[in-house]
């Protein structure tokens, strides 16, 4: 019986338990989410992000904490393509970005028990883990990987510019509304820093201003955002 389970691939995962119905029932259609994710190749543009609003991230993370790897697979199916996109923005190369996503899911699994469901925000928590990992790869010990590929460090694809990203933000987004109150250089600097993991120095180089100016733009821009977002 156990041998049969092991050799038939996926079956070595625990069976889908009834407790998972909590988040699976709120998932309007995972098949649909998968389908749309598969369709959204980078070359295709789309007007609004496909929020998986119906997916209960917090419940899935709780299930992960109790050792149910089907919950991790569900999170992966819903979120991996977008997480890979975020990692690609930071790391540029798909192989590195996939390493970051891999490490992020391993961390999500191993840290799921420390996720505080009272606070909620499971999806934000997952992206924080991913971004931490990718930024560490970008700046840390793995940096040597970039030396043969410095060209790809710049803004190479048109769909990655800050204005396009802004235009894809939800109309209801408070961040979008507040970013739009900033003057363009400050807005671009902050959005570029976030999307591409650029440092003050790299931003100064990219936008052709002195480092001091860039630091001041960022500081004042963030202050204005704070005032606006409250």
């Amino acid at each position, binding site marked *: 019986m156990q041998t049969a389970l*092991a050799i038939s691939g996926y079956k070595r995962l625990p069976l889908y338990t009834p407790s998972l119905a909590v988040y699976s029932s709120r998932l309007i259609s995972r098949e649909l989410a998968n389908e749309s994710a598969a369709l959204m190749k980078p070359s*295709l543009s789309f007007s609004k992000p496909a929020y998986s609003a119906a997916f209960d991230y917090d419940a899935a993370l709780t299930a992960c904490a109790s050792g149910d790897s089907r919950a991790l697979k569900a999170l992966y199916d819903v979120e991996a393509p977008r997480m890979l996109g975020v990692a*690609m923005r930071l790391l540029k190369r798909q192989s590195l970005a996939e390493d970051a996503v891999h490490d992020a899911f391993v961390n999500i699994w191993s840290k799921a028990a420390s996720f505080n469901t009272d606070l909620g*925000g499971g999806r934000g928590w997952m992206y924080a883990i991913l971004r931490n990992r990718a*930024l560490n790869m970008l700046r840390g010990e793995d940096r040597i990987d970039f030396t043969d590929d410095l060209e790809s460090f710049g803004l190479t694809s048109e769909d990655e510019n800050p204005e396009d990203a*802004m235009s894809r933000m939800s109309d209801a987004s408070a961040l979008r509304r507040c970013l739009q109150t900033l003057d363009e250089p400050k807005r671009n600097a902050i959005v570029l820093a976030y999307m591409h993991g650029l440092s003050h120095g790299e931003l100064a180089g990219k936008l052709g201003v002195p480092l001091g100016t860039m630091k001041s733009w*960022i500081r004042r821009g*963030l202050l204005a955002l*704070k005032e606006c977002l409250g």
Partner: protein
Amino acid sequence: MMSPAPEDRDALAMEYAVGLLEAHSARIEEMMEDDPVLFSCVRHWRQHFTELDMTVLPFSPSAGLWRRVEESVMQFRPEAAPIRHRTSNTNSLWQNLPLWRWTALAAGAASLLLVFGLTAQILQTPSPAIMVAVLQQDDGKPGAIVEALADGSVRLIPLQQINVPRGRALQVWTKRNDVEGPISVGLLDQARTLRLDLGQLPTPGSGQLFEITLEPETGSPTGRPTGPILMKGLTADTL
């Protein structure tokens, strides 16, 4: 570390959430553990900025990525391990990518260590001494050895403990002939093995005088020995 002021916390949290704190991020993460206010600030700003992540164009992961995740995740599932061992032990071990990665890393590191170790050993194989001087103290006891090695280096090896008064130092001299007089080749604060700096001097010849005198801390002010001679000896060829 002290907690930052409330208004600074927000600024810190925002810069951290944007990813602009670079080298300080590990410190911020430590601070967050002890500072619930900072933690919730960071959380607050992350939630806002995550809206920018949601604008990304999704990328289809490679077909094998989930399998990689799944295999790594198995490491964290102690309850799953016995089943795997009982069923297809060899196979799952063979396909355990993290295990083999670490094994490969460890093997690589071990080879590097071996290379360094062997290189160090080869480099440390002492060059044979071609010239030796035994420096004798007033009481006739050997106080130190000076040896000139085949590779051109010259070193002093003390044989006796020497009490060096505060503010004084031991200065090593060599004298090739009376015309040139004694030349300083080293200064040391206590009796220890020292590589002597012969500068432009040629490798010591036979019968060359070496001596150690007690001098001011910064060495003899005149460039010639001024203090008492503690030990001296002449070089002799080795067999």
